[in-house]
């Protein structure tokens, strides 16, 4: 199997991969499996009924990682995949997904990844998903990810959902069911520019006693881009939840932030905060007193903010 320079650059950007990874992985390119590898405790198999893969992590698997990046380098592709993750009880793994599109033409390239995770009792996962688009054509790059998690008793999930740049339109939907004493930490980072649109809809159901969920979203909107952020925390029992959305707005961009709290029990403790504002003039001035130009100062501030 050969990777060309464009493939390698996309893989590096979305999954920090330098060439073919070690351990379990599945690399999908232009709607086809390019390479796949299972290990003793992590099996990756194609679905029989629809495009996508089943990833099965044996109970008790610790300190291992799975890479399942998707790259699209042809235009006019509309790729839909269903991936299902079975994370065995007591395991502790890192899963790196992500999609990079290189579209040099006039036709639209689109990838809709539907990821569903069953995180069994006491298992821990860190899930990293990066989205990135490039290519000089007028063809649009569209990414519509759906992420669904079921956290069983005492499970822990840390999500890092990042859209770096170059994605014209995105509609991201995240739904998490947090069981008793299970814990969710979700970090979302979003950058939009030019005429891009991004919509993120998050539903977190805190379903058991001692369940906890934290959603931290940071975004930057530049140019004429538009962002809508809807985050709903729904508490059923003795649970704790917090949602914070923090945005930097620039140029002629528009942002809507709509955090919502729904308590179905008097024992639910739910809080939210939201802020939209420009970069502070003093932050830019401070970095300029170090000799940075105004543009370098802004870039440094945004890079830190979205890190």
């Amino acid at each position, binding site marked *: 199997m050969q990777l060309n320079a464009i493939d390698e650059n996309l893989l590096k950007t979305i999954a920090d991969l330098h060439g073919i990874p070690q351990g379990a992985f599945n690399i999908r390119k232009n709607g086809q499996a390019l390479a796949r590898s299972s290990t003793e405790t992590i099996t990756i198999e194609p679905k029989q009924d629809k495009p996508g893969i089943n990833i099965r992590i044996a109970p008790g698997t610790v300190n291992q990682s799975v890479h399942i990046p998707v790259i699209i380098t042809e235009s006019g592709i509309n790729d839909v995949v269903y991936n299902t993750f079975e994370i065995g009880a007591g395991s502790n793994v890192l899963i790196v997904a992500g999609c990079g599109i290189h579209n040099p033409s006039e036709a639209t390239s689109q990838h809709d990844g539907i990821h569903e995770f069953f995180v069994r009792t006491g298992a821990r996962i860190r899930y990293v998903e990066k989205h990135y688009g490039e290519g000089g054509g007028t063809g649009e790059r569209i990414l519509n990810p759906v992420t669904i998690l079921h956290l069983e008793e005492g499970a822990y999930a840390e999500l890092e959902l990042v859209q770096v740049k170059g994605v014209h339109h995105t509609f991201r939907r995240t739904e998490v069911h947090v069981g008793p004493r299970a814990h969710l930490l979700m970090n979302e980072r979003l950058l939009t520019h030019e005429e891009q649109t991004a919509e993120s809809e998050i539903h977190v159901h805190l379903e058991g006693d001692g369940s906890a969920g934290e959603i931290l979203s940071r975004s930057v909107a530049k140019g004429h881009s538009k962002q809508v952020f809807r985050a709903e925390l729904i508490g059923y029992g003795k649970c704790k939840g917090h949602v914070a959305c*923090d945005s930097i707005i620039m140029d002629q961009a528009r942002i809507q932030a709509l955090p919502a709290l729904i308590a179905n029990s008097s024992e639910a403790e739910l809080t939210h905060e939201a802020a939209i504002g420009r970069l502070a003039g*003093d932050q830019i*001035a*401070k970095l*300029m007193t*170090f000799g*940075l130009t*105004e543009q370098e100062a802004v870039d*440094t501030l945004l890079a830190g903010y979205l890190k």
Partner: protein
Amino acid sequence: MLRLQNISVQVTTENEPLAILRDVNLEFKPGCFYAITGPNGGGKTTVARAIAGIIPVSNGRILLDGEDITSLNITERARLGIRYAFQNPPRFKGIEVSTFLRLAAGDDTEAKTLRRTLRQVGLCPEEYLHRMVDTGLSGGEMKRLEVASALLGAKRVVILDEPEAGVDLWGFEELVRVVSQSHREHPDRITIVISHSERFITQADELIVMAEGQVQSQGRLADVRTTLMEELNCRWRKQCQLEEDEDAVECHR
């Protein structure tokens, strides 16, 4: 030599022009340590921000070694060696102390220099290098870091705006020592400290007293003592205090 010639700064508030600095003339000589003091709202910070290029001047010229820098922006002045430590240092989400100091000092600065500077201002590098420069740092920690960032590198002009504000008592002596030491290590440097602290004031080669947007007096401590002690307090204060006993409060100014 840093020279401020007939500097005026005006801002517009509620459509009314307000003069913050009025015809300020100052000279700062290389190798000298200056303290600017005076009551709140007197224009001290505005002088500093005007030198750094953060506030545009409405009138007058600023010269650095004969070069007119009035029209240069903040970046260009920074590159000429002017460094300004803010009175209220801004915080940065997602930027680590190590990154912040490297931005201040330049990419090629050795790690040990950053560590040494942090230690000098009383911040243990082990503990602080990887902390974020955000709301996780206290006001005093922010001020120490701000001083550290200003002292890094061989700058021609270093302006510290109330470096002692928020710094605890036992850290303060050390801070004064570090600022003086850094000044001595750079023989041609102009150090300007805006301060209300006697320790800084007594360190200075020359004192500048500012009030109401103007330089009230300038010279060695003995020369300006009268201005500091008597004139800067409201000249009518004695009168008022007499009347307060009789519960008749009226301003005589």
